[in-house]
């Protein structure tokens, strides 16, 4: 990892290996450091172990070997509550993420589980919903919202916990172009570390200055997103394909 890192990086994964109980080994020694405030895209073909890696970040899966640290705090049984507050995971299907009867209760679930009550809780909820522009939907049941709105609420449920790092699993999947752009605007406006798992390479380029490729359970490349996407050989080797007509060289990045 040649990236310069801040004193306490948001995320520090070293030598992480994991095999599922059914014997399938998904991770073979992952090393990844994400500095505070960085936005990193995690790219890789299907079955590369992306989701498995994500589930280690908040201790849902127990590392077979290696360690994960979040803002310096190791992911271990005794501090799982704190880890889960610090790592906000937005799952791919908002219907999995939004399980409460109303949007407001759903956003309140995380902070309430960590002990917030009353006005303080209400404030958190309002703030998180405002960040994703969904304040006026607070009392609606999630299943009455459009898919794009549900994904935004899903992001809010995690933001309400004021996480150290926001982990998004395929944030742009199934979104229409307008919702896709709205979500990008929201993500850019947030002052939080982001790790974004995605197949949507233009989206990765748009949002994340840095990208890593996870392939066969290990990090195969770690570089500026634009440089990675321009490396045709590397892309082919890891079954990553740009959409038809998209040329990463022609994109000029603001950052």
């Amino acid at each position, binding site marked *: 990892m040649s990236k310069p890192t801040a004193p306490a990086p948001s995320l520090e994964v070293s030598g992480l290996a994991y095999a599922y109980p059914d014997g399938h080994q998904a991770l073979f020694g992952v090393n990844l450091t994400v500095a505070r405030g960085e936005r990193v895209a995690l790219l890789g073909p299907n079955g590369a172990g992306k989701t498995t890696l994500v*589930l280690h970040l908040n201790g*849902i899966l127990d590392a077979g070997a290696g360690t994960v640290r979040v803002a310096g705090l190791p992911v271990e049984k005794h501090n799982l*509550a704190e880890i889960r*507050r610090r790592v906000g995971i937005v799952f791919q299907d908002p219907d999995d993420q939004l399980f409460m*009867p109303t949007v407001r209760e759903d956003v309140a679930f*995380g902070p309430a589980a*960590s002990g917030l009550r009353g006005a303080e809780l209400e404030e958190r909820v309002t703030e998180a919903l405002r960040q994703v522009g969904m304040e006026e939907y607070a009392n609606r049941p999630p299943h009455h919202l459009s898919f794009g709105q549900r994904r935004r609420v899903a992001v809010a449920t995690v933001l309400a916990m004021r996480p150290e790092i926001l982990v998004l699993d395929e944030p742009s999947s199934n979104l229409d172009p307008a919702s896709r752009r709205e979500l990008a605007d929201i993500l850019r406006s947030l002052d939080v570390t982001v790790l974004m798992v995605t197949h949507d390479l233009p989206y990765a380029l748009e949002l994340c200055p840095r990208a890593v490729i996870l392939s066969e359970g290990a990090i195969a490349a770690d570089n500026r997103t634009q440089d990675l996407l321009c490396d045709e050989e590397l892309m082919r080797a890891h079954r990553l394909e740009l959409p038809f007509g998209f040329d990463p060289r022609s994109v000029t990045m603001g950052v």
Partner: protein
Amino acid sequence: MGAGHAHKLYRHVHSPVHDLPPHCKLTAVFSFVLVVVLTPREAVWAFALYAVLLAGVAAVARIPAAFLLKRLLIEVPFVAFAVLMPFVVPGEQTELLGVSVSVPGLWGAWNVLAKGTLGVAASVILASTTELRSLLLGLQRLKLPPMLVQIASFMIRYGDVITGEMRRMSIARRSRGFEARGVRQWGVLAKSAGALFIRSYERGERVHLAMVSRGYAGSMPVIDEVTASRTQWAHASALPVLALVICLLGWTV
């Protein structure tokens, strides 16, 4: 069923009945039905009065009669059963429209029909004036075990998602020329049910994952508390108390 149907059951208007706290309404409906069940069936006039009471509540709740009557159709299978009673119950026979029927059977049919219909009507009024969410809060407030409340709330939350999946599977089946016509198609239906179960279960696991990721450790955090004032309790109790008076009269007269 599930939420998709449930919100069709709920009538979104404002009325004093809508505004009552859910646990008051639940208690009132339950006590009312209990009183009705305890009324002797010979007191025919008492049941008429109960019906008047319910009609009054429905009027206050601004539920149109047509809506209420349509929802009463759920009772039909038991109406069929009740209609049979006068013919199968042994006992004193009487002539009704030229047909010989038994008197205890008629009483039995009347008993089931009257009490059943009143019970259904009371539940319909409850469901059409109370949102699902508040029903659950009400049940929670009435000390239904939290686990059951959680299960019910998940069921309502995912009822739509799962019936939606079922509908998509049915469309997929029919798009390929499948029509459930007889016993031979049971296998296909069962495979669909199996696939639906797997999908439901896997979603359950993913939902659990999402909950754990946000700090769930086995119990739901308390976010909302419903409370009821003394006046609200007094309003809600009007129905069962009046019914009780009628019931007592029914026993004494």
